[in-house]
């Protein structure tokens, strides 16, 4: 491949082929951090520096008020994440980081769907919500809001089912995750 500094031209294919180390799977990264200003920027900055796109990002408190947990997901088929995990470890405010194996992990997401529910559609929507163990949390004459928790796949499936009825809008939290078994995440 051509080198910076020389006049050799690069082709777009060469540029794309030069990225290696992709894992090909989705990654759920759980990061335990000190609850201090700027921590989130430092972490997201490490991803941004390499041009990585974070798919979801959740920050919340833990059982110890000094620490927060950040759960983020990204697609390993787009980005090699090994090096970025090591760099995350170097941040002074980061205590622990786990690249969770999907098989050993319980991951859940919360979503709310606002659906147009006029006339006969309403009953059908409620039925689908019931099958997905969703809950109706708001009803007006022309709409319902359904709250649904579950895996990202389940939420995507529900979205596909209800979209034809008129999906006004949807809000998703992004996944949180915890490892299976007795050990700490």
């Amino acid at each position, binding site marked *: 491949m*051509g080198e*910076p*500094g*020389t006049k050799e031209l690069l082709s777009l294919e060469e540029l794309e082929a030069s990225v290696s180390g992709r894992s090909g799977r989705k990654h759920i990264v759980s990061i335990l951090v000190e609850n201090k200003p700027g921590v989130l920027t430092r972490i997201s900055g490490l991803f941004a520096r390499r041009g990585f796109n974070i798919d979801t990002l959740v920050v919340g408190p833990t059982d110890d008020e000094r620490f927060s947990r950040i759960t983020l997901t990204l697609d390993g088929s787009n980005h090699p994440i090994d090096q970025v995990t090591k760099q995350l470890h170097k941040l*002074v*405010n980061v205590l622990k980081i786990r690249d969770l194996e999907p098989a050993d992990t319980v991951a859940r997401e919360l979503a709310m769907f606002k659906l147009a529910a006029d006339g006969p559609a309403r009953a059908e929507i409620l039925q689908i919500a019931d099958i997905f163990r969703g809950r109706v949390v708001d009803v007006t004459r022309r709409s319902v809001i359904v709250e649904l928790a579950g895996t990202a796949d389940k939420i995507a499936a529900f979205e596909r089912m209800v979209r034809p009825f008129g999906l006004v809008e949807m809000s998703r939290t992004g996944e949180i995750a915890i490892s299976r078994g007795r050990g700490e995440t």
Partner: protein
Amino acid sequence: MRAVDAVMECLKAEGVDVVFGYPGGANLPTYDAFYDSDIKHVLVRHEAGGGHAAEGYAKATGKVGVCFATSGPGATNIVTPLTDAMMDSVPVVFFTGQVRTDLLGTDGFQEADTFGITMPIVKHSFMIQHPTEIPRVIHEAFHIARTGRPGPVLIDMPTDLTRVEIDYEPVGDVRLPGYQPTTDGNQKQIRLAAKALANARRPIFYTGGGVISAGASAELTELVRADRFPITSTIMGLGAYPAPDPQWVGWLGMHGTRTANYAMDEADLIVAVGARFDDRVTGKLSEFAPRAKFVHIDVDPAEISKNVPAHIPIVGDAKNVLARLLTEYRAQAADPSRLDAWWERIDGWRTQHPLRYEDSTDSEIKPQYLIEALYEATKGECVVASDVGQHQMWAAQYYHFDHPRRWINSGGLGTMGFGLPAGMGAAVGNPDLTTLVVSGDASIQMNAQELATCAEYGIPVKVFILNNGYLGMVRQWQELFWDRRYSHVDPGRWPDFVKLAEAYGVAGFRFEDKTTLVEDIRRAIATPGPVMVDVRVTREENTYPMIAPGAAARDMVG
């Protein structure tokens, strides 16, 4: 006491005797505290000069350098030295003033988001939230800067928070739950490395700046001499192993020796210590050292297997690991004669490909000759601070360093303008040794204002400008790789450097004659106080040998 007086107390407690800085509106309270403090403050002429001076001080002494700047433009002016310190792992604590808290985020006068701007270029940073946390933050900053893989730490202090009375109590301990660098190497891995060394037939040590940071020169030298191991280093690692020496094969990489690069190419075992396989070292990565297994010793786990997969990774402090590796290696009782054939090969390269240049036959000064003359005139007993470009490569090639912390350059970031202020900092930190600054006609002008600082404080740096009237390294690349289309590398008109020196109150000389050069250099160096010498050298001289960009190490040219 006032929070700013507590800052002075903390600096004293950290053993700081000198700082470099520049006052402004947002750090007025701090500068009021300097008025009564015993800490020596060197007033630089530009904050970038202050940052590089703190780096030079840190590199020459091994202590943490300290730099003060005000908010806004003061803070943005230290962005380059901060990045430089980050790339070369230099322990420096930067204190920046900040607008008062009620103005934060309002585009107040001289406000910049210093904390945000500098986030990717610091080892860590703090924004003071409450005056009482100032002492603890300062001690944490020094601790982070000097331990593990050293690096720059920034403390941003809103001006109102520094004007508060606080109860100051000395801070005895530092607790950082997320920061616990591994310094003890794994014993099993160390034993594996010793075995690999004992079995290797073509081993080589490849060391970097990490050995110097760790203060591990003695341990390295002893281990390398425990057998007849060949050793090369990066340009950052010069002086960790004393050169010249029969086992030293020169430094490696783009402008390193052929011997070092060929030995890496044919080695069966490479022991990397405190080095990071930079692209300027490896050349074409896929063809780098294709026959070698790698032992990689580094205090920073993120460096291991970053560019080249390590077969035996050892995370730990080089001083700790090398000492234990020596013990383990001796226990192996390896047969030194297994290296005979390897040395025959290496000696063959050495004889065939020494560093060389075509010297002039008249009075013209070749830049390489100037460096040789500097070495001869000083017997190598100097600290050499370099700027960035061709002169940097020649200085590294033809001046030899037999002690650590004698060679100070900007390796990772390649910052033009680094040399003079860094040399100034080194001279302040190390007054017993002569400090040379090797610069170029372009580099020197990127921080020439620090000549005034040198004159005011009598900092006796001896600056030698390799003046070829070109941005030499860029010109070389345009000549070799861009069909000699010399685009904007001939500045046409430079200042008269002798007059410039004199205008700043610095002794100025101009040397143009090779035949008297060594004596002229002695005379310049013997001149008391700071000196700047304009040395007219060959205009179009290339730095060789060279690994062309994208080429493999074995295909060196020139």
